[in-house]
């Protein structure tokens, strides 16, 4: 008898199906609307891959070249689409290779579900081949994790996994399934999505009296200032947020993770906060009288020295995660709850206002920054190419409609400083963890998450070499990714710090690179390298116009620095505009 016939026979008339644990995993994916999975097979996950063979019409599996690539791709997918990114990896090394991505997804609140294979349950703890204690390794870097040793648990555990990953403050979930559970046949009813876990409160109840107090503070303010983070994007509250700032007339600055939640050219948008953010929002954080933080977590790269951060201000903090309230900055009025719910309530209570004099102060600082930093970066007076002018040309040619995925380092800061965005979910970067090697795989994921948009991965020469094996994934599956390498022949950000704070002792930052264009060629990806200004615009246009993935390397100034900068250990108001002031 054929296997299919046996399965048919096993299906009773009770509505119960007899399926394997592996099928249950894939049925859960289908029921949750998963269409793309990033993964890599191996011994302990072979039953799932065997079942996957029969699901290829419903689930598109992208075979990456390294499990770290799989999870970063899933992260990029999640960030571009707003859906949960899904990963398969085998036990042992397959699972440990996920750890960096899990930590990244944890700190940047990215919803991903990893399914890892595990050795047979009877071998747990015996140091079996490719056995690792994955649950304990990943506990600090997952929102939730669980080991399945019996197939009957799989439907409810998968339902919980998706629910936990995407609800409340999103985060990574890992489900480790022993091989016996993948193989085991069991009877199950139709998949039921999870909607409630009694010990888990995804979003706290909104307390109206705190909103009233917050509105009172805002209405009485003379110099109110809004700072916002990724919470606005994760909460799908972009419209609610814009309505709030527009009615209240309050200038708003974004963190790196909040970027693109409002269009970069919004009249109330005053730029980026933080270490390499804009001059005005950093300095004026210490002059505002009411600071309204929305969906952000006061990271040290945003606050600088905490005892010199907004001491004069009354702080209103809107966040979905109660543990964020008072964690770093003492709050005057905590408004916990989903900002999609809290922002409209607040908007209805704030008075319609404008603060022309206060907004002008941001513009004055912007002008100073323009003169001292931006002008030279975007329109250099010498022949050396800057990262800023490349980003500027990209803005011009994409019209600000592209998804920009960045890696970590100088190019990341420059891209985030100068990139223009017209729509949300467009800036994808490793903000909290600062994971070099993130951009290439994340861009692959973003291309699947938003297939109708242009995805540009801006990467440094160092970061590109960390995960360039994913060019193989591009070669095989042909996602459309524009790879823009800004090559300064240095590990630029570390070099900048060595120059500024370590007496120019350039210790192991002179990284050598292969011929990137030749490397790409080896993977069947066309490309070119430019080092002269006259070729730059044409080259970017060629890259964008090309049907499919294209690699463009731009040779930029070796020892350019990113400014302004809040040097570590100083307050935000002590931001400096040039090397001489450090």
């Amino acid at each position, binding site marked *: 008898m054929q296997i299919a016939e046996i399965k048919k026979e096993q299906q009773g008339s009770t509505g119960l199906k007899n399926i394997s644990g592996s099928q249950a995993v894939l049925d859960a994916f289908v029921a949750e609307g998963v269409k793309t999975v990033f993964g890599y097979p191996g011994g302990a996950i072979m039953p799932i891959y065997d079942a996957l063979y029969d699901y290829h019409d419903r689930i598109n599996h992208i075979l990456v070249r390294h499990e770290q690539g799989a999870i970063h791709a899933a992260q990029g997918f999640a960030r571009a689409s707003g859906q949960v990114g899904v990963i398969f990896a085998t036990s042992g090394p397959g699972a440990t290779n996920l750890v960096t991505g899990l930590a990244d997804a944890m700190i940047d609140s990215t919803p991903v579900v990893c399914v890892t294979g595990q050795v047979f349950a009877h071998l747990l703890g015996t140091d079996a081949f490719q056995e690792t204690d994955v*649950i*304990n390794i990943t*506990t*600090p870097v997952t*929102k*939730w*994790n*669980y*080991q399945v040793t019996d197939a009957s648990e799989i439907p409810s555990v998968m339902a919980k996994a998706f629910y*936990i990953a995407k609800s409340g403050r999103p985060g990574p979930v890992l489900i480790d399934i022993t091989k016996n559970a993948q193989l085991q046949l069991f009877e199950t009813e139709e998949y039921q999505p999870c909607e*409630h*876990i*009694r*010990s*888990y*409160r995804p979003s*706290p*109840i909104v*307390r109206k009296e*705190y909103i009233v*107090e917050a509105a009172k503070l805002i209405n009485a303010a003379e110099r109110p200032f809004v700072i916002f983070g990724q919470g606005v994007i994760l909460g799908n509250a972009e419209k609610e947020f814009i309505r709030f700032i527009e009615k209240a007339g309050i200038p708003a600055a974004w963190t790196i993770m909040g970027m693109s939640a409002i269009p970069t050219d919004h009249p109330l948008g005053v730029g980026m906060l933080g270490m390499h953010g804009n001059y005005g929002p950093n300095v004026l954080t210490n002059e505002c009288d009411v600071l309204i933080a929305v969906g952000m977590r006061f990271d040290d790269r945003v606050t600088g020295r905490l005892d010199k951060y907004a001491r004069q201000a009354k702080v209103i903090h809107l966040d979905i*995660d*109660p*543990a964020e*309230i*008072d*964690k770093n900055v003492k*709050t*005057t*009025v*905590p408004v916990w709850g989903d900002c999609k719910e809290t922002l409209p309530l607040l908007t209805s209570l704030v008075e319609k206002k404008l603060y022309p004099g206060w907004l002008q102060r941001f513009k004055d600082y912007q002008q100073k920054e323009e003169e001292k930093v931006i002008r030279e970066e975007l329109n250099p007076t010498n022949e050396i190419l800057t990262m800023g002018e490349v980003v500027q040309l990209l803005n011009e040619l994409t019209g600000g409609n592209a998804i920009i995925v960045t890696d970590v380092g100088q190019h990341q800061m420059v891209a985030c400083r100068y990139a223009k965005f017209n729509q949300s979910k467009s800036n994808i970067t490793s903000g909290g963890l600062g994971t070099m090697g993130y951009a290439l795989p994340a861009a692959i994921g973003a291309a699947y998450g938003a297939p109708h948009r242009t995805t540009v991965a801006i990467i440094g020469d160092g970061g590109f070499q960390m995960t360039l094996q994913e060019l193989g994934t591009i070669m095989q599956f042909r996602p459309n990714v524009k790879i823009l390498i800004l090559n300064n022949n240095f590990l630029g950000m570390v070099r900048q710090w060595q120059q500024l704070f370590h007496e120019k002792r350039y210790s192991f930052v002179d990284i050598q690179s292969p011929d990137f264009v030749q490397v790409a060629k080896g993977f069947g990806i066309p490309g070119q390298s430019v080092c002269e200004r006259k070729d730059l615009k044409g080259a970017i246009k060629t890259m964008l116009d090309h049907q499919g993935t294209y690699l463009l390397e731009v040779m930029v100034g070796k020892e350019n620095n990113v400014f302004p900068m809040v040097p570590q250990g100083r307050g935000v108001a002590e931001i400096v505009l040039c090397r001489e002031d450090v």
Partner: protein
Amino acid sequence: MQKQEYTITVYTENQIGLLNRIAIIFSRRKINVESLNTSPSEVDSVHRFNIVITETEEVVKKLCRQIEKQVEVLKAYYNTNDEIVWQELALYKVPTAKIAEEVKVERLLREHGAHTVVIRKDYTVFAVAGHREETDKLIRVLEPYGLIEFVRSARVAIIKDSEGFHKKLKEFENREPSRQVIENEYLDKNREVFSM
């Protein structure tokens, strides 16, 4: 803010791995756990942790929020020693011959509220339940008489003004629970957080 002893009480689902999830919240911040006890609670299927640390209230409050953030944690409370009734159990093994010789020992043990668990020819085991100072004191008392072994349990504590968890759990099971259940109760109590 002054550091002092706090007892954290955590109500959780009974799940493998949760102990580790809670323990790493302390170890990640390099905070020493002085005592940790896990046990069933007054509610069937709900587990109860008692954790003792010496820290400032601000730190304890943040720790409790991090604990409550864990998916399987129902609720975390923290209390000072005034707000709880607590006990630790200590066992002492002493040579039987020595105690038989010295009449004084029997009186000492009575004074410290010890009761005999086992009497054998070679040794006797006494048990004392009480606060740490009390159980510590008896070590010093018994040392001259050849204390062979000593062990003390983790702290178990009851919160004086708690109404138990039965009612709360009902609300947790409800999809639209009341505000008190959802919210961080410390924020309600603590005026300085909400200083208008």
